[in-house]
């Protein structure tokens, strides 16, 4: 691939999804975009690039942007955030929101749904404690394709075994041929909608908890800052944020602060001191 072609594509990716693609990832561009070229009846990737140069068709730009996202996800990924959510965050919210009986949770890079469905399983486990509560679990992602998969909720044997205890599989999945499908009940607990983290966050307000995991890792520092500050505005003043294992707010924004002893968990700064001490004693 010629350097000017690489610059064209990586420029498109950066403005449309925030993805920073370094030149040594050129093989990734070639392997993911060549099938798109073929599917469009074009002979080579060069033809596809010419097509982009000539017409800049919105649909094609979206398609290549989606094709370059990394969608890997698993149920209960890294365990710790989900244990913290179950043992600390939810019990605290049950006390704090006792008046409204409402909890709002947002998965801001939900991919194929494993993360929001893991949350739904945990919420379900709480049983009577959340009887009569309104629990919103909202999964958004840039890519429509992954959200379609999330909505159908069909997972391979390999996917349901990575990170998920067998008891959850027995409780919440049914076998469909070689695949496993999540129950209608859990599907009913999660809403999915396309949303780009670089766009505006209209309609996103008052979230108690945001999972924004394994997506900022692909962005440049100033883009991470912008996204996290917008996420902050979509949250309650005393909200909790979960990031991926290789992500942090340190050096990125002072709107969030790590919770001591709780890896991957962050509080909004205004109240974080008071809250983290109440979580420690509670």
């Amino acid at each position, binding site marked *: 691939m010629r350097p000017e072609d690489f610059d064209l594509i990586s420029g498109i990716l950066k403005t449309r999804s925030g993805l920073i693609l370094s030149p040594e990832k050129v093989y990734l561009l070639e392997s993911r975009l060549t099938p798109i070229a073929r599917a469009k009846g074009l002979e080579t990737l060069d033809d596809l690039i010419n097509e982009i140069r000539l017409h800049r068709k919105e649909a094609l730009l979206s398609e290549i942007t989606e094709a370059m996202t990394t969608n890997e996800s698993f149920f209960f990924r890294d*365990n710790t955030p989900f244990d913290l959510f179950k043992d600390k965050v939810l019990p605290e919210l049950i006390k704090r929101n006792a008046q409204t009986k409402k909890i709002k949770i947002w998965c801001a890079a939900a991919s194929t749904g494993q993360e929001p469905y893991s949350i739904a399983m945990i919420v379900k486990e709480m049983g009577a404690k959340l009887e009569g509560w309104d629990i919103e679990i909202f999964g958004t992602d840039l890519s429509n394709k992954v959200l379609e998969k999330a909505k159908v909720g069909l997972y391979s*044997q*390999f996917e349901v*075994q*990575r*990170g998920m*205890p*067998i*008891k959850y*599989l*027995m409780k919440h999945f*049914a*076998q469909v041929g070689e695949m496993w499908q999540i129950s209608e009940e859990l599907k009913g607990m999660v809403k999915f909608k396309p949303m780009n983290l670089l766009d505006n966050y209209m309609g996103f307000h008052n979230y108690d908890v945001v999972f924004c995991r394994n997506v900022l890792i692909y962005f440049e520092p100033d883009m991470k800052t912008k996204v996290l500050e917008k996420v902050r505005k979509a949250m309650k003043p005393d909200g909790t944020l979960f990031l991926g294992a290789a992500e942090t707010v340190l050096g990125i924004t002072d709107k969030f602060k790590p919770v001591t002893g709780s890896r991957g968990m962050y509080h909004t700064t205004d109240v974080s001191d008071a809250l983290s001490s109440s979580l420690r004693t509670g």
Partner: protein
Amino acid sequence: MKSCLVVDDSKVIRKVARRILEELSFDIKEAVDGQDALDNCIADMPDVVLLDWNMPIMNGLDFLKALRRTDGGDNPVVVFCTTENDMAHISAAISAGADEYIMKPFDREIIESKFSQVGLL
């Protein structure tokens, strides 16, 4: 170091499982069928049993039931690891006292994730 008894009639599977589990710092013993496994357990109860289902002489489920009736046989964590991948088998295994269930084919990641679910890692 925790001990793990790998029970499978396939030598290849035992070898793969041994390699993965040794890397996870388990001390490995092997058994070739349910009866062999039971004899092993009675002689020296392991901390964990990784258990195939279909084996000659005594199958995995019969072994598990016998193990749970044996003195000290409540202790080992039992993780099935089998090509039986339907809900009926899974339920039967869990009701008989299995702690986790792996559907073959497996890899290091699945073993690691299942073992950590049951608190072994």
